[in-house]
């Protein structure tokens, strides 16, 4: 899990506008709202509860990294979260449920070489430095890159494990229909 994408825009075309685009300021106060949005969208797209929680955790960690390291805790800088359901291109899925979810987080922070964005050694027990490890552990594909002349872009993909997730989604749908 967590390997780099060669072409993160291959499934959801890079020119397709995202289905959801959220702009928030770099204030930790808004993290819970971003988590709730992402989790609720993933749920509606057929991801099981555990996967929804992991997707929300990855987004939270990514936003925290932008706030802390990118913007140096300045609470008034912009961050964008874009979401695409991914159909086809070997990602599986159906008309109802996509095979994967692609989430892109962009900022206007100082640019860093993506090669230096690494998890710390987990054997070293100290506070901090776990965000990148968590993101790579819970998402299927992760790629950091420079975003034009300013800012960074993080692209993450989470695939749906179709059988279990379709079963849960069908169960939830039947329950809501009273069947």
């Amino acid at each position, binding site marked *: 899990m967590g390997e780099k994408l060669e072409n993160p825009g291959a499934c959801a075309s890079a020119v397709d506008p995202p289905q959801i685009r959220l702009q928030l300021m770099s204030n*930790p106060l808004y993290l819970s709202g971003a988590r709730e949005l992402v989790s609720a969208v993933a749920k509606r797209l057929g991801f099981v509860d555990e996967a929804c929680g992991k997707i929300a955790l990855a987004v939270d*960690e990514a936003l925290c990294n932008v706030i802390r390291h990118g913007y140096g805790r300045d609470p008034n800088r912009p961050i964008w979260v874009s979401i695409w359901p991914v159909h086809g291109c070997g990602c599986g899925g159906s008309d109802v449920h996509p095979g994967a979810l692609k989430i892109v987080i962009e900022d206007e922070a100082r640019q860093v070489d993506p090669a230096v964005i690494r998890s710390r050694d987990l054997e070293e*027990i100290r*506070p901090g430095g776990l965000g990148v*490890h968590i993101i790579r552990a819970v998402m299927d594909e992760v790629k950091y890159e420079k975003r034009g002349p300013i800012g960074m872009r993080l692209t993450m993909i989470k695939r749906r494990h179709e059988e279990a997730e379709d079963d849960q989604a069908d169960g939830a749908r039947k329950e809501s229909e009273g069947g």
Partner: protein
Amino acid sequence: MADNVTRPGFATGGGESAFRVSVENRPGATVVLPSGEIDLNASPILRQELKRVQTARPQRLIVDLSGVPYMDSSGVATLVEAMQIARKNSTRLVLCGMQEKVLSIFEIARLDTVFTIVPDATGAMTA
């Protein structure tokens, strides 16, 4: 008899936070009970409260996480810092009441075997 002290937390830069930390002084242990999601907004409140209670160098410090449905790496970092202070002070730090979702982040960070984690507060008194 437990000396219950509730110290409500307030988020910086915004209105009143839903996150709260209460502290109970029991014979032989100080119990810290955070309530609410622990993220970058809430973790400074927990950090401040843990530091405050650790200045008294309690024999045993229990962090009861049964009221915490979510924690991110900033919450984990706060507890790692508390563990380091506890070691310096010869305080026994025990985490209890962890919900599955919270335990999973400790497992991902491979910290589930570094902390003493028990199911409930009763077990934490003797762990």
